[in-house]
């Protein structure tokens, strides 16, 4: 029973969610290999260092820089022979590929696993995390995406051997045009220990900059509610919630966020929650550890000066 971990690379580094996937895979079996699909051989070197990986399977081709789901899912399904599990960290990268692998292998994948109960039994959230389901897979191959907030992130250790897989790269009907990335010096939202998150209460894109100022003062990452993203205060990659990112920092400071079910789904596992809001009846205030009922602009001003 061996497992293959589908690795996601961010700026040539192994993503935090892939490190969580390695930890999850190790709970299932001792034999864990990693699959890297890339145009850059150096990527395999950083993957080889991740603790717990037996071997790195490298599929290397110039065309794979921004590989499509169509190409990646074919490559993954072709290599799955001999593996009982495919494990990937939950992210837009894996969600774009793993279900399509499921179609190619005739397997029903299991999304967003938060706990491994046994070799074929898993816990996963439904209804924005308000319901937790324990499910048993009856497939002969098991495909999982796992929540990065539920598993430790494997660190680096001794280097594992790298094996180059030579295979035909299929033609793609999907062509990469461009990527517009938000560049930030701040900590990554999904791994940050502290997050300052802003909502509709900020009122405008200009006002939202005070959230960024506060985050910088506290060494925190910036997050946002769907309402703030929809209103154009900040870009989509900052959204926390059911359809955005799931976070579990040591401290989550929610500023002007009322706390829709869909937002709470993305942050309710935070260790300490702070609500800064002038409405004491907001759901966020009811689920917070520390509640400061105040005009948010006054509060941030005071925090910046403190």
């Amino acid at each position, binding site marked *: 029973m061996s497992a293959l971990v589908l690795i996601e690379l961010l700026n040539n580094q192994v993503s935090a969610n892939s490190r969580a996937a390695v930890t999850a895979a190790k709970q299932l079996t001792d034999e864990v290999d990693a699959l890297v699909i890339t145009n850059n051989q150096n990527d395999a070197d950083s993957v080889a260092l991740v603790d717990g990986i037996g071997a790195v399977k490298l599929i290397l081709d110039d065309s794979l820089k921004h590989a499509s789901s169509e190409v990646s899912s074919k490559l993954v399904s072709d290599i799955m022979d001999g593996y009982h599990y495919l494990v990937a960290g939950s992210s837009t990268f894996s969600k774009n590929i793993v279900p399509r692998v499921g179609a190619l292998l005739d397997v029903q994948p299991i999304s967003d696993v938060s706990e491994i109960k046994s070799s074929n039994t898993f816990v996963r959230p*439904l209804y924005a995390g*308000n319901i937790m389901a324990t499910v048993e897979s009856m497939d002969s191959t098991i495909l999982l995406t796992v929540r990065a907030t539920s598993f430790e992130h494997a660190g680096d250790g001794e280097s594992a051997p790298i094996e180059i897989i030579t295979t035909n790269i299929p033609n793609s009907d*999907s062509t990469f045009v461009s990527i517009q990335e938000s560049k930030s010096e701040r900590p990554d939202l999904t791994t940050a220990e502290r997050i300052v998150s802003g909502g509709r209460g900020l009122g405008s894109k200009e006002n939202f900059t005070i959230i960024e100022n506060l985050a910088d003062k506290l060494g925190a990452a910036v997050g946002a509610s769907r309402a703030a993203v929809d209103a154009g205060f900040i870009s989509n990659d900052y959204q926390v919630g059911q359809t955005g990112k799931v976070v579990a920092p040591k401290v989550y400071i929610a500023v002007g966020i009322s706390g829709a079910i869909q937002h709470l789904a993305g942050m309710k596992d935070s260790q300490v929650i702070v609500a800064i809001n002038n409405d004491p009846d907001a759901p966020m205030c009811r689920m917070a550890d520390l509640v400061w009922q105040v005009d948010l602009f006054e509060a941030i001003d005071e925090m910046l000066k403190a």
Partner: protein
Amino acid sequence: MKIIVPIKRVLDPFTQARIDSQTQSVDLTNSKMAMNPFCEIAVEEALKLQESGVASETIAVSIGADKTVDTLRTALAMGVDRAIFVKTDAETDLQPLTIGKILANIIEREDAQLVIMGKQAVDNDNNQTGQILSGLLNYSLGTFISKFNINDDNKSIEICREVDSGIETRNINLPAIVTVDLRLNEPRYASLPNIMKARSKPLETIELSSLDIDTRPRIKVLSVEESGSKDRLSKQVHSASELFEELKNLGVM
């Protein structure tokens, strides 16, 4: 171009899901139901393509027990031309792989070149069906899209995808499946005259059992439980210094 929009009936997203202690499953019998919000966005996008003359016909498809017809009527009232209802027993638990197989059957039968659907349903939160469907049909795939443009050649589309690191733009060839994200458009409401008109639009019913599809569940749900929220301090603070002091005492700052 014929466009198919698969839609799902779900628990109203503003309703808290509860477990029925009798059945040990999520209580849907006494709850308000609605069209999955991502499906509404998909319907809206199809209607825009109809209004701009790109779509020759728009067809909503849904799979479920009798009440699913209500959701298809909503799509008809929003403006789609016709609806296909794949009827199941109330007890049947259909998982994304099976849903994909049923939809693939309908899409092949209709010979549709473009499928627009929600990126996930807000009940099971799987985020799988569009991807599975693209794999089964070997169609191009565009997931989590926030922008959509048919290129001049009418054979490919340019899409913007909301990914974890930002916005990715790709060109994908037809036939294609796209799954829509929240910011693609603002779905319209059905007007009263259109709700009346929808009653006379064509709605075809197909018995699932007539399709010869393997509907065996691959996943068994052993148990469900409401995730109790963590006990929180619920402590009021009144100043920045007090807040920082508390955070220090809690050992998180």
